[in-house]
């Protein structure tokens, strides 16, 4: 008897003709690590929710899901609630209570578990997840990564056998995300926990994966072990989310086993290709002489007692550039953007926007045709009930936009996917015709296709003369789209350069391809770079 068996499962939302989930069948063994991927809106979330009776939504359903041979809708309520765990995307909104210990206890309280059992299980879980020191804290004090670990721990106290996760790392920065993924691996290894995860960030998940399921328009089009499945992917959007090693392999039409980790990718490269041509030639980068945003010896702190967040920060962004500012959490990236946008005031140093000091812009003139900033949480940009009203409110017609929002004009901004939200927010910003655009983590929570799309839109805006400064964690995005990259550390900029030289010089804070080709090629940072160099060099066995 299989642990999980899905039998021709279909689901149609009310007032929809096309099914969101369309005759899906697959099986999963106990202790397997299943990864579900596909573009936004392909039915992943709907499928995952069908596993959990408590989360059922209204609609037409046929087929069934068997959990240890019992259909999920016939499971006892307590079994369904505790044996199938569910973790959602947003770390903040899943948290119910104000204290960490209470959040951990919540599920067990709901099941009516006696006090002493709750005490033991929450203590156990807190120690296992390394959040023991946070036990008595307020949930509001935790960082995003800690919140998501808490959500996972709060599900794990109920001792589930199947754990379902719907894009759990989408809102996390890369360090927290990889922490989270390694915790999943540990749970899978230590307890044989069965995992079913929908993800966009596949670089780290695929190596753990025992069954990869690719979804498209409600159907599972490919399934099996990642090494078998990835070479068979034809859709470019889905391919763009796969690990770099696998993408390089498939863009070179490689033979043999598909590599999925950096190490395997390296073995594949060194085993199959020569490296007499090591370098991609670059034209000297020239920027315009005019400064759009200039920081000079800027110091900032949040309160008198706290340490400096900006610590003698100096840098210049020139007009017509697209600059990515990278750096770890708490390095002061977002603070520097808020300072540039006049939301925070530095206690020392000068900030100039187009040559004028910030305080010379009076009565909001800074925000009129000059500078605009998109915050990290784009939901805070929206005030109206439909996208059309939003645009009208901001004073821009849909036709004036450099991209199309026609499909979503009548929808509520909150109902859009992450990528569409980002575009709608960008549209509102464009209404004030800024010459300098500041963006805070624009690729957060986007699927790979939406990331590429946003990148292309920003490129287009830059070509039309806009200066764009982006604060991001996303090294792959920066490598693809930036003119220049800067590394932020401890309140100042420590290095800068064009993406190729910047990422080739970094050893850890760099793209997977750069790590893969270190010492073999000199400055390959993207899959295209590496593939180009491989083609130039030719296969290793050609000479023999």
């Amino acid at each position: 008897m299989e642990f999980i068996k899905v039998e021709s499962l279909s689901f149609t939302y009310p007032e929809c003709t096309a099914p969101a989930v369309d005759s899906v069948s697959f099986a999963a063994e106990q202790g397997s690590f299943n990864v579900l991927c596909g573009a936004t809106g392909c039915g992943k979330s709907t499928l995952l929710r069908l596993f959990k009776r408590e989360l059922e939504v209204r609609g037409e359903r046929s087929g069934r899901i068997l959990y240890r041979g019992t259909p999920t809708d016939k499971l006892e309520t307590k079994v369904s609630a505790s044996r199938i765990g569910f973790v959602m995307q947003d770390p903040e909104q899943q948290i119910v209570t104000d204290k960490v210990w209470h959040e951990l206890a919540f599920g067990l309280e709901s099941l009516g578990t006696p006090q002493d059992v709750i005490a033991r299980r929450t203590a156990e879980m807190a120690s296992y997840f390394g959040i023991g020191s946070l036990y008595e804290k307020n949930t509001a004090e935790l960082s995003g990564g800690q919140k998501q670990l808490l959500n996972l721990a709060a599900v794990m106290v109920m001792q589930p056998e199947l754990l379902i996760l719907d894009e759990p790392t989408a809102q996390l920065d890369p360090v927290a995300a990889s922490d989270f993924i390694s915790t999943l691996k540990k749970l899978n290894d230590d307890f044989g926990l069965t995992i079913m995860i929908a993800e966009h960030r596949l670089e780290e998940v695929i190596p753990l994966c025992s069954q990869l399921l690719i979804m498209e328009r409600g159907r599972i089009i490919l399934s099996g072990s990642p090494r078998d499945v990835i070479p068979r992917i034809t859709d470019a959007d889905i391919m763009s989310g796969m690990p770099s090693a696998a993408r390089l392999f498939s863009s070179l039409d490689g033979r043999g086993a598909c590599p999925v980790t950096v190490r395997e990718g390296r073995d594949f490269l060194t085993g199959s290709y020569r490296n007499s041509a090591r370098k991609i030639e670059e034209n000297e980068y020239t920027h315009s002489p005019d400064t759009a945003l200039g920081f000079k010896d800027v110091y900032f702190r949040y309160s008198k007692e706290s340490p400096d967040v900006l610590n003698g920060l100096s840098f210049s962004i020139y007009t017509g550039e697209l600059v990515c500012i990278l750096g770890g959490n708490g390095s002061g990236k977002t603070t520097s953007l808020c300072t540039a946008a006049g939301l925070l005031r530095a206690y020392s140093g000068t900030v100039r926007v187009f040559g004028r000091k910030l305080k010379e812009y009076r009565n909001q003139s800074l925000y009129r045709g000059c500078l605009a900033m998109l915050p990290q949480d784009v939901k805070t940009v929206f005030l109206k009930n439909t996208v059309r009203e939003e645009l009208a409110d901001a004073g821009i017609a849909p036709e004036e936009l450099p991209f199309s929002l026609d499909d979503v004009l009548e929808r509520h901004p909150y109902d859009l996917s992450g990528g569409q939200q980002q575009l709608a927010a960008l549209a509102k910003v464009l209404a004030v015709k800024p010459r300098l655009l500041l963006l805070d983590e624009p690729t957060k929570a986007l699927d790979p296709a939406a990331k590429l799309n946003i990148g292309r839109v920003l490129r287009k805006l830059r070509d039309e003369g806009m200066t764009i400064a982006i604060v991001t964690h996303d090294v792959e995005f920066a490598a693809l789209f930036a003119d220049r990259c800067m590394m932020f550390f401890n309140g100042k900029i420590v290095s800068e350069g064009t993406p190729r030289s910047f990422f080739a010089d970094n050893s850890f804070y760099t793209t997977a391809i750069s790590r893969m080709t270190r010492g073999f090629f000199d400055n390959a940072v993207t899959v295209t770079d590496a593939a180009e160099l491989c083609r130039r060099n030719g296969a290793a066995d050609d000479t023999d």
Partner: protein
Amino acid sequence: MRSFSEFNPAVVFLYFMFVTGPAMFCSNPVILVLSLAGAVTFFLVRNGSAHLKSHLGFFLLFVILALINPLISHNGVTVLFVLNNNPVTLEALLYGINSAVMVIAALYWLRSLTQIMTGDRLMYIFGRFSPKLALLISMTLRFVPLFSRQTAKTRNAQKALGLYKDDNIIDTILGDMRVYSIVITWALENGIITADSMSARGYGTGRRTSFSVFRMGLRDVILLIVTGALFAVCCIAAAQGSLKFGFYPALSRLQTDSTALAGIICYGVLAFLPSVIDMEVNIRWNLLRSRA
């Protein structure tokens, strides 16, 4: 070795009831002075030299409260002087001071109480009556700061987009209204996800239990019995009329029979008990450290 605030919240809460009760319902000046002294000492033991400015504020309030009564009440037999054809009497002045002591003492107890009784402690106390109420309190405590943070974030976002004007008061109000309306939508949206997260973890499948990190230990029971007994003695003394004191028309004599003395001594012990517990903890800690 636990400081007073670390005792079981229910015991601590009852203590505050015990100590403020007699001070509120009897006008015996000795009891009131003991109450004020106990309250201020406890606050100082807990906070040290922090909040210095606020003490000044409370002192001013004390002076104002003490002076108002003689200005509006002209009862009493000992006239000090005449102001605008109205006699100002010694008895009214003393009565004013006495009430001011009572009010300021109550305020100081309240300050310590609000410092100690954090949300989770209150929830522990009220959660015993209803696990649902406990959850509601906990969710509210989480939600209110979340809501105001989202409001601030939205306002900043609108400002940096150049869509939020605060040049004049009308613009500010209109802008705020737009922000509030969307933050409410956000809260409802948020609520749906939170509700999903709750039902996914079995909310509503049956009777809930209420878990808490607080335990009732032997020391808590002892403290409860001691404070309860002290309170009982004060009550008996008050019930027998031994703590009665009148200001009008002339000051009555303080009673010094054994019941009155017992009541006053017990109240004094009660009022200084938390300060003694906290100071003892400090001293014991320093001793332990110096020996090590």
